[in-house]
């Protein structure tokens, strides 16, 4: 059934409270069954220096099962689960990234990745499970290779951004990395086939129809042929990234290109955007609102450029800025949002008759 703005609603189904400071980020465990058989599991990180793990209990509600504390000494800005669901990486303003392993019902810090000169802003695991990437206000992006025995080797320190790097995200299918920055640009990084050398294969900036202010987030759709970025310039931009999957080597790397700009939907910085497996884009911003967008007609064989339309806008979704929005990978109609108000809200997209 086609999703029309007339027949959908976003209903708040739960509010997770407990953080003593703003909730900066959240991540759904992609394989919760590997962590004690929970049907859903979520990690949230906060300015209170802790990470909270929430698990779906018998009442079908998420309860806080663990608090990861006394490790980071400053704000925990971002968290990300490994593809197998057994490891959680947490990135902090204390310049370190901690790796936590699920061991017998609890989480143990098994490694600490050091090297960044100042605040780490984001961490991401590649879907191959081979790599981790982190980025920082020190303007660099670091790539780490996962080794046996909970060892992590830094294999690249990528320079190129001229300012604070806000977020990094691996492509869902191939080992290609995207970084977005306070310098208003988006950079694409890939490994040189021969030399295992990582380098910047493309920069999407204002000249390439890119953003005109800080880019805060990036997310791919599940098939990896589209990417959405959100910015302080109050827009969301959709990019065609299909060459990442059709291309077999980086020489003659066919450029990713701008497809569509969504503007006028948010009145303040758009901190986060995320793509559901069903193709719905959720965005959260400093105007406290949540927006959902879908592709017009949803027909990928369109002759004209694809366009996107607003499906729904939830004003005052939170009492304060929304910092992060994430769809549940196991239940495509469930969305979570993290806010400056210290809460995480769980939403269900419902079709109403």
């Amino acid at each position, binding site marked *: 059934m086609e999703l029309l703005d007339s027949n959908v609603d976003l209903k708040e189904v739960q509010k997770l409270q407990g953080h003593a400071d703003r909730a900066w980020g959240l991540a759904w465990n992609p394989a919760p069954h590997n962590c004690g058989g929970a049907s859903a599991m979520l990690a949230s990180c906060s300015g209170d220096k802790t990470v909270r793990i929430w698990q779906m209990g018998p009442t079908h509600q998420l309860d806080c099962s663990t608090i990861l504390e006394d490790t980071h000494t400053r704000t925990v800005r971002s968290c990300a689960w490994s593809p197998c669901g057994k490891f959680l990486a947490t990135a902090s*303003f204390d310049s370190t990234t901690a790796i936590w392993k699920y061991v017998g019902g609890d989480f143990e810090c098994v490694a600490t990745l050091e090297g960044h000169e100042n605040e780490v802003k984001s961490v991401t695991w590649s879907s191959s499970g081979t790599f981790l990437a982190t980025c920082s206000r020190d303007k660099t992006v670091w790539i780490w290779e996962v080794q046996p025995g909970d060892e992590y080797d830094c294999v690249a320190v990528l320079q190129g951004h001229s300012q604070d790097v806000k977020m990094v995200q691996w492509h869902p299918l191939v080992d290609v990395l995207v970084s977005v920055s306070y310098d208003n640009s988006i950079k694409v990084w890939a490994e040189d086939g021969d030399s295992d050398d990582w380098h910047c294969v493309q920069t999407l900036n204002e000249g390439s129809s890119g953003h005109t202010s800080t880019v805060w987030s990036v997310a791919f759709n599940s098939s990896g042929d589209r990417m959405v970025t959100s910015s*302080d310039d109050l827009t969301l931009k959709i990019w065609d990234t299909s060459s990442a999957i059709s291309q077999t080597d980086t020489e003659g790397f066919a450029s990713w290109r701008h497809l569509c700009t969504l503007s006028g939907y948010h009145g303040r910085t758009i901190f986060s955007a995320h793509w559901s497996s069903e193709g719905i884009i959720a965005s959260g911003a400093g105007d406290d609102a949540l927006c959902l967008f879908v592709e017009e007609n949803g027909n990928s064989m369109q002759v004209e450029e694809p366009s996107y339309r607003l499906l729904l806008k939830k004003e005052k979704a939170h009492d304060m800025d929304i910092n992060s929005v994430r769809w549940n990978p196991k239940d495509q109609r469930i969305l979570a949002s993290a806010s400056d108000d210290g809460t995480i809200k769980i939403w269900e997209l419902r079709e109403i008759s």
Partner: protein
Amino acid sequence: MFILDRLEEIVNHQNIPLHPASVPFIVHGVEREREKQKEKEMTLGLINANPVVHERRERLSRADDPPHHPYPHPHPHPDDVLDALDVFDSVRDIRDPEHPYSLEQLSVLSEESITVDEKLGRIQITFTPTVQHCSMATVIGLCLRVKLMQSFPPHFKVDIKVSPGSLANEEAVNKQLNDKERVTAALENPNLRQLVDECLYSSELYSY
């Protein structure tokens, strides 16, 4: 130049290991700046040795003024609407980081430079640094942010800018002051936080 980074250097009084890629540029810039600074300081004593100081405007006496307490709160007007004067009252006495005068006395702030929309929960402040190459502009901006956070409900959204044309690196400063992640990280720096606190709490001398 990355103002808050530079500021942290000054404030920490230490050699921050510089990133390889940026060493040639920053070191050169820092050396040049330090030379200029030293020269200025030698000839003037201070960057802005003779700031123009104004009279502090008389505080209008209001019927319900409570006695002095550590965190002065704004006193809404009799008509109970939060307005620019209420916001101004909360920030006018913040001490300038370089001089023993308030931001009001140095004309860095005025009631006219503030707009408030209580219903929307928005505050906009524009401030005018005393000199074009003010290295303390970001500190002043941070002081304003902290004071407003302390004085008004948390859901209020605050935009802080330098008045157009008043600062050489206006755009860069505005961008930093309105990036909440950068502001949060800066305020977690204990030295910077201490400087901000000194500017805020010495204002108690003027309260009553």
